[in-house]
């Protein structure tokens, strides 16, 4: 897509303008925060949506920008989920925000340690290995049920008030504001990363690692770095889930969770940051609607949607997404529009 700039503009101005927050983006976030007051009765499901959005953002970072296919983000999500639950339950760390950061760091550490697994091998190997790590952690959590509560889940978790002041309430008001703020902060950081030279180098890794190394980019180091960051963000999402629900169970590690995440990104589109957010909203909406029709067999309809999307062709779905975005962009927004197709 070629930019529509007047020829007299300097390149620097072009780049600066591209990185600036567009009116549409600002409107998006204003609306997002406005939902606190617009939908007071829906805070519980909105919290889930915000968490899912953050989780999807973490996958978009590695999949949409660096081209790493992963079925195992649930590993980091779940690990941080349990860590945050355990530190709260046993009073190791009471302050939720500190626990959140701590859990995120633990998840990032796991990401760092396992990152070398995704450096080598084909897409299939990456899928396998990432899935394997997630399932392995799930198995571990299952085995050590005396610590994790096993299949029953982590019981007896109480989350202290944020900063000692904001108590988590039954209706999820505090929880939602908390999640939204965390989502926004993480989003700002990721947005910064994406528009930085580092972020640009990630996109080159997705395109052509051979050439990237031929122009001096230390490919492996960059992959490890972005994988670690992504793991940390996925971990923060997981910890948020535990903190807002005061509960954590084995399904945080499940294949379903990783698969749903991919679906969210496909619906929303990858490579422009808002795909995960928009996809999460649509997904949750779908889930709510279908669950009201057939509560038990949600999985069937999700499966059908996946199959349908693939049969229709992701490029066509991408195309629709791009068309919608282009239409919105025409309204004065200027989202990053490098909507590269997934995989290849």
């Amino acid at each position, binding site marked *: *897509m*070629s*930019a529509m*700039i007047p020829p007299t503009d*300097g*390149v*620097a101005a*072009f*780049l*600066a303008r591209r*990185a600036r927050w567009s009116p549409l983006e600002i409107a998006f976030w204003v609306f997002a925060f406005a939902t606190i007051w617009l939908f007071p009765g829906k805070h519980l499901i909105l919290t889930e949506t915000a968490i899912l959005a953050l989780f999807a953002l973490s996958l978009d970072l590695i999949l949409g920008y660096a081209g790493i296919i992963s079925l195992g983000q649930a590993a980091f999500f779940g690990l941080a989920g349990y860590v945050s639950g355990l530190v709260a339950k046993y009073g190791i760390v009471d302050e939720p925000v500190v626990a959140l950061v701590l859990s995120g760091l633990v998840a990032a550490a796991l990401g760092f340690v396992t990152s070398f697994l995704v450096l080598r091998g084909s897409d299939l190997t990456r899928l396998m290995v990432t899935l394997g790590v997630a399932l392995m952690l799930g198995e571990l959590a299952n085995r050590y049920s005396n610590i994790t509560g096993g299949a029953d889940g982590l019981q007896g978790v109480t989350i202290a008030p944020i900063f000692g002041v904001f108590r988590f309430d039954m209706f999820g008001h505090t929880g939602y504001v908390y999640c939204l703020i965390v989502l926004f902060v993480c989003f700002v950081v990721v947005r*910064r*990363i994406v*528009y*930085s*030279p*580092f*972020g*640009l*180098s990630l*996109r*080159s890794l*997705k*395109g*052509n690692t*051979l*050439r990237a*190394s*031929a*122009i*001096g*980019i*230390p*490919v492996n*180091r*960059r992959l490890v*770095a972005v994988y670690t960051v992504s793991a940390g963000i996925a971990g923060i999402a997981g910890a948020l889930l535990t903190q807002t629900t005061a509960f954590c169970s084995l399904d945080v590690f499940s294949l379903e969770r990783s698969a749903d995440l991919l679906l969210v990104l496909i619906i929303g589109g990858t490579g422009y940051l808002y795909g995960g957010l928009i996809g999460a909203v649509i997904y949750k909406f779908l889930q709510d609607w279908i669950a009201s029709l057939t509560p038990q067999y949600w999985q069937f309809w999700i499966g059908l949607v996946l199959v349908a999307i693939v049969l229709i062709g992701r490029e066509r779905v991408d195309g629709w997404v791009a068309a919608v975005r282009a239409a919105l962009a025409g309204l004065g927004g200027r989202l990053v529009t*490098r909507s*590269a197709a997934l995989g290849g």
Partner: protein
Amino acid sequence: MPILETIGLEKRFGGVTAAHGVSLAIEKGARHALIGPNGAGKTTLINLLTGVLKPTAGSIMLDGRDITALAPYQRVRLGMARTFQINQLFSDLTPLETIGLAVSERVGLGSDWWRLVGSRPAVTDEIVEIVERFRLTDVMHERTAILPYGKQRLLEIALAFACRPHVLLLDEPAAGVPDAERHELLATIAALPEDVTVLLIEHDMDLVFSFADRISVLVNGGLLVEGAPEDVARDPRVKAVYLGEELDA
């Protein structure tokens, strides 16, 4: 002291010897061409020089420093860059972004995740300068994938150049470029700064003889002849190799 030197370089793939006993010495500022029939091992040699392949024996010296064990990206940082015979570009990035990437990386901004691309004027100026030098200004905001082949080829060279190499390895830069766009390409290559040493692999003999001040002939993985263009052109062994090929073809 030669700026680029190989000593007894050898590469074996199982039973196939793609390079044996290749000893090359290239002086600073040289315009050195490497020619030879298809399958002679020219691209293998470039891959060995840049670190994409590891030699079975022998060593490579860049400006007096042994780089045989270094990874490709490390060699780039020491001042060696290359182009690929088949364009290896980033199809979703624009020429501006592509060159910007190489420049940022070179000045050490590559791992900067906080500052915005384009926020350093010196860097941006350099990017624009390179874009203009390689006549890509009119397409600098287009996705690489939709550029005409000649422009892509120019970008390919511009990208290597953006690494400000001391030694530039060009692997068949004119390959596949339509006649209409060749002139632009050749003029750009001729206009490369004099302090950049260029090693050129080419089949196009017009380009070779007009550009090179020294030619090496590679046949079956070994160096056959090396010398000034006129001498190489007259050498009977070279004629035999090429004419022999033409008779068979």
